[in-house]
């Protein structure tokens, strides 16, 4: 289908964006526009804003501009302080042609309940930096399906990923009916000196953060999801837990 008509402008700076709907890569918003699930009157394009591009790395971690693409993470152009975990997650997002345009910040702000970054970046204890000078832990950013704690007119400008302690291990598995499809279940597990951390995703709600395998098992059992998706979460949990040696 074709989108309903909208006005369009390219932002020249973050300051001038205002409270309108923004579009970056448009790889989630584009389908919603074409299907007329979204009908904004006006879109402001922030994809090429210099302030949202570029990456940096130091001893404490890495910072990715919000308009960093999934492919830039996949290809190692964006530094990955988790030693390849985030790079591996990037490779499983949709398809390469989508990853070449879709952005990490856009994925977080869109907050699709089946999305990969809200889960993987919550596991890594990443923080979203915003245009309102706030620092929002990714685990607190997504409130529910397509709902975030961003205020009207506030956009994500960068993502800060802390460098984990030596000996930290990460794993993530998801249940998809076909490579690149939306996940029906997703579980990420981190083990290391800071203890266990588990994130459950694709649960039709905000990702859940738990502090151990047993707590995660109890949480999965209590979710009101179809049995095959609860079984999928449990299977993904088992695989990820085995991989991190838990």
């Amino acid at each position, binding site marked *: 289908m074709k989108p309903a008509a909208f006005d369009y402008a390219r932002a020249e700076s973050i300051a001038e964006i205002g409270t309108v709907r923004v579009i970056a890569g448009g790889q989630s918003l*584009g*389908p919603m*526009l074409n299907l007329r699930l979204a009908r904004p009157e006006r879109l402001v394009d922030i994809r090429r804003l210099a302030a949202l591009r570029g990456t940096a790395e130091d001893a404490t971690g890495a910072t990715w501009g919000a308009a960093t693409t999934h*492919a830039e993470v996949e290809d190692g152009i964006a530094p990955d302080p988790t030693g390849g975990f985030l790079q591996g997650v990037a490779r499983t997002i949709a398809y*390469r042609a989508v990853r070449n345009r879709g952005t990490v910040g856009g994925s977080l702000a869109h907050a699709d309940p089946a999305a990969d970054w809200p889960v993987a970046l919550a596991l890594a204890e990443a923080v979203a930096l915003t245009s309102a000078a706030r620092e929002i832990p990714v685990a607190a950013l997504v409130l529910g399906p397509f709902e975030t704690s961003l205020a009207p007119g506030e956009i994500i400008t960068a993502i800060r990923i802390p460098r984990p302690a030596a000996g930290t291990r990460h794993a993530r598995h998801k249940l998809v009916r076909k490579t690149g499809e939306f996940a029906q279940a997703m579980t990420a597990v981190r083990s290391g000196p800071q203890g266990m951390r588990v994130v459950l995703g694709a649960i039709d709600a905000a990702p859940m953060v738990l502090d151990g395998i047993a707590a995660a098992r109890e949480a999965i059992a209590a979710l009101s999801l179809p049995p095959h998706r609860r079984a999928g979460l449990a299977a993904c949990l088992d695989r990820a837990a085995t991989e991190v040696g838990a």
Partner: protein
Amino acid sequence: MTRVTLTVNGAPVTAEVEPRTHLADLLRETLGLTGTHLGCEHGVCGACTVEIDGAPQRSCISYAVACEGSAVRTIEGFGEDPVMAALREAFSAHHALQCGYCTPGMLVMARDIVLRLPDADEARVREEMSGNLCRCTGYRGIVRAIMAVLQDRR
């Protein structure tokens, strides 16, 4: 209407478009480049895949106005490309197309794999091609054709 200036297959193009016009409609309806095909129009089927600024992207969920200043290359723009020539031969030899509707998108993606992942095995090729759907020939011939080109270049 919004004016957009970009290059398509190396030639400068200026067009007046509605902001809601996706790149594929600009290519097909305004420029007459009908080699880019539209299947699902929401980023799932891969038929509309073209190269934007050197990387394969979906032209159905990339709006023309958002491609200001970009270099777009459609299937019509690969006539002299040696990798694409090898892929065309291999697609023919391995019966990698029947109706041909998905083929332009398949070829753009296949060329990206050949250049970006020269060591790819069959499983990787299948993973990388998962965003391009074929509804008649099936995938065996397509995967064989891409593997043949990869192996020839090793």
